[in-house]
């Protein structure tokens, strides 16, 4: 019997939110560990390109303006108490990151420089070229090294252990050796990111498979507003890789096949910098109306000049050259809306607590909810830092005078070993995880995308039922122990199917159009009946929905125009 691993606070996921949480918990005095299925710097926080929002008072900005823009962006579905927390904290968190060593671009006076971003009335997005997420992630990893947090790198969590309604630890597969371990904990913080790979295509990295959402859902926890799925307006033709909003922030235009700036007709004031849901819908309308080319419209940066592009947009220029063979300095690049982010997630309060005692969530896997129906660009990095830190602080405090929950460690571990062994022992015939995932992704992208209707969503719900039955027999071809990714992908697919169910059911339930949810059969926002969150919990026949009021502090819902 190997020694039992145990930590006061165990963070699952080592992107920005997870590392920030772990550093905070450690600083609070808790014995803290972080576990991640990839090395921390491989996390998907890397993909955030454009920047991080903050209203700095000494620039004449006001956190309340930032809060209002965020609330309007959310189509009034965001909880205003949480948004206030985030926007008040933003300045201090930004300066913290700068002190940690982030190489933010500067203005002429050597102070932090800003760029404009979508859905905001002033430039308050701080940035490092067009790789802000990567810059922040690597600096956070530096701080993690410094912090003395124990790291379990390339360990994949297969189960969340709850004992008497209290978090008690996780079971995880050490990927390099194939060994299954049980790690005891007094508190578990989930920071596992989104679930974008259940759409095909998606801008998301291949690791973004909804693990934490699936773990909580299966443990009886609450997911919320899962129907709110963001399609980013500028993803590359073909590969679907992200082209940052920074391009439009720096002044790029969107053009149809004849060169017209069609946003004039959809958002005459903000034009290309309207909120993402608005721009994606406009593009899709143009494409559906025959004004695109091969399912795309154009992002035109040619008037920005080579110098600006090389200084501020060099990475995405390279992506365009590498993956589309197009140099944006010289010609417009073909783009289309692509699945990018999920506003929904594990329901938490402003301290990161879920409805499961001792379980916290932060970052994209969580829904606190600051993004509501539509997230503003550059608010996601801020969300990870602010609520990662708060979760870590609270979990550290929560576990201080507590003992480890007692339970049958060997029995729990052996049950999980048998479950995994059963998967490995299945006959090799039958559809592999890859085929099921592809069909799921295509169905979601067909019917639960920019435009939705009842008939389509129901078709996808049927597809998902059928896919789940096939999943129950999914074979694992690789029977080996070390670095068996075949097994991991099969396990991840289970998490993705759970998330897909909740997204589809939420989309069917919400009979209105708000934020990213646009129902062609209910094209108007309906505050009378639908100004509330949709909470989803696991039932016998699929997700069960319930309502939760939106927290409104001082900004009354109004018509949304850009």
């Amino acid at each position, binding site marked *: 019997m190997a020694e039992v691993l145990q930590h006061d606070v165990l963070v699952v996921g080592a992107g920005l939110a997870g590392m920030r949480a772990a550093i905070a918990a450690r600083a609070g005095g808790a014995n803290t560990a972080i576990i991640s299925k990839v090395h921390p710097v491989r996390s998907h926080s*890397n993909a955030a390109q454009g920047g991080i929002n903050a209203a700095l008072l000494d620039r004449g900005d006001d956190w309340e303006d930032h809060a209002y823009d965020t609330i309007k962006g959310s189509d009034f579905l965001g909880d205003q108490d949480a948004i206030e927390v985030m926007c008040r904290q933003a300045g201090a968190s930004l300066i913290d990151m700068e002190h940690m060593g982030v190489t933010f671009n500067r203005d002429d006076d050597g102070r932090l420089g800003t760029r404009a971003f979508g859905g905001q009335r002033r430039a308050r997005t701080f940035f490092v070229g067009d790789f802000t997420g990567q810059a922040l992630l690597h600096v956070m990893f530096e701080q993690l090294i410094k912090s003395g947090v124990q790291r379990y790198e390339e360990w994949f969590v297969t189960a969340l252990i709850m004992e008497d309604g209290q978090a008690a630890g996780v079971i995880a597969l050490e990927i390099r050796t194939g060994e299954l371990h049980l790690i005891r904990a007094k508190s578990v913080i989930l920071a596992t990111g989104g679930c974008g790979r259940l759409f095909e295509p998606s801008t998301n990295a291949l690791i973004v498979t909804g693990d934490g959402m699936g773990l909580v859902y299966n443990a009886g926890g609450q997911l919320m507003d899962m129907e709110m799925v963001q399609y980013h307006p500028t993803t590359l033709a073909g590969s679907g890789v992200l082209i940052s909003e920074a391009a439009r922030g720096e002044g790029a235009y969107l053009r149809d096949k004849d060169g017209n700036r069609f946003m004039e007709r959809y958002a005459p004031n903000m034009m290309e910098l309207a909120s993402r849901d608005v721009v994606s819908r406009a593009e899709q309308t143009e494409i559906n109306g025959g004004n695109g080319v091969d399912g795309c419209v154009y992002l035109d940066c040619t008037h920005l000049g080579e110098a600006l592009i090389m200084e501020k947009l060099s990475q995405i220029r390279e992506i365009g050259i590498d993956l589309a063979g197009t140099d944006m300095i010289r010609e417009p690049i073909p783009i289309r809306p692509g699945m990018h982010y999920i506003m929904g997630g594990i329901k938490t309060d402003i301290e990161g607590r879920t409805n499961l005692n001792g379980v916290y969530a932060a970052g994209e896997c969580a829904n606190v909810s600051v993004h509501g129906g539509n997230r503003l660009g550059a608010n996601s990095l801020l969300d990870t830092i602010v609520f990662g830190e708060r979760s870590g602080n609270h979990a550290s405090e929560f576990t201080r005078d507590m003992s480890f929950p007692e339970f049958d460690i060997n029995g729990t571990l052996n049950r999980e070993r048998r479950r995994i062994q059963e998967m490995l022992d299945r006959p090799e015939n039958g559809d592999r995880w890859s085929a099921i995932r592809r069909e799921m992704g295509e169905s979601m992208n067909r019917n639960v995308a920019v435009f939705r209707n009842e008939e389509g969503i129901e078709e996808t719900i049927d597809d998902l039922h059928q896919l789940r039955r096939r999943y129950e027999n999914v074979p694992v071809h690789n029977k080996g122990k070390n670095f068996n990714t075949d097994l991991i992908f099969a396990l991840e697919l289970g998490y993705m199917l759970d998330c897909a169910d909740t997204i589809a059911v939420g989309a069917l339930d919400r009979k209105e159009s708000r934020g990213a949810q646009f129902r062609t059969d209910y094209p108007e926002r309906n505050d009378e009946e639908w100004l509330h969150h949709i909470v989803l919990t696991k039932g016998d026949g699929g997700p069960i929905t319930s309502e939760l009021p939106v927290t409104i502090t001082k900004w009354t819902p109004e018509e949304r125009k850009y």
Partner: protein
Amino acid sequence: MDVTIRVKRQDPEADGEHRLPYWQEYPVTIADNATVLDALIQIREDDDGTLSLRCSCRSAICGSCAMRINGHAGLACKTIANTVVQDGVITVEPAGVMPVVKDLVVNFDMFWEKIEAVDPFLKHMGREPDGEYIVSNDAMLHLSGVTSCIMCGACVSDCTVLEVDPTFLGPAALAKAYRFTADPRDGDSDGVSMERLWALSEPTGVWDCTRCNECVQACPKGVAPMDRIMAIREQAIQQGYNNNNGARHTDAFTESVAHSGRLDELRLPIKSVGGFTNMPALMDYMPVAFRALRRGKMPPIAHKNVDNVEAVRRLFRQLEPDPPAPRVSNNSPFG
């Protein structure tokens, strides 16, 4: 496009033949603009679930998929297949230097140990400002050239020093170190990172690089690790850390050419180790010297100037206005 992906596979944990490296060929049909990674993912998903590789972002930002493609390290997601196909075949092997875990997956422990060895976090002596540090945009843009490193390990894979000397900190860790030595916020109030520069001048540090340029070629993000290593050497010499073989070698090289217009190959190694005061090091050279002598390759004892040496000296006077810094002890001033 039809192409055969030839993969070097290995399962060190397996019993039997797959314990040792072997080649497996996968014929695939891929889109014309597909990357090598697209092809490998297609194999993994449609053809062979036992093939192991790391990959995630597909856009050269996560650093997972570094491997050797046709013999040279690079990112599979950044390599368009039709640009590297040779006679219908693309050859893919795991990254070098690091041991194989399985197939295209290598063990990065040594990579991260080296990163941690350079104290990879900002160390500012003195009080932090209330707001942000005031620094120039140019300084930050310069650092961005290094912080764009994604830690993929391509440079380490192809480093010719690490191949034979695992103690060398290597290109990735030294580029990471430069990210701090060149940061105006790191070190003292003038932005000088004295402690780092001392440590990096020690054996295993910047002077162990042989300037082969492989890391510059391999880097998929334009970080140019070798250039950063050279920049640290310069920073260290400027701060007086010049009493080591590498710095003395540089100085002796320069002195020789400045004086005679060419290299004095006999005196260069002697000066590099610190002259006749360092007898043990000189004795180490004796076997080499005897072999050179026996084979008639001993440099001439009398070193002659090139014709028109004055022109060379004039050039040096124009280019090198600063006198060399005084030599200081290489013992750590920091205890």
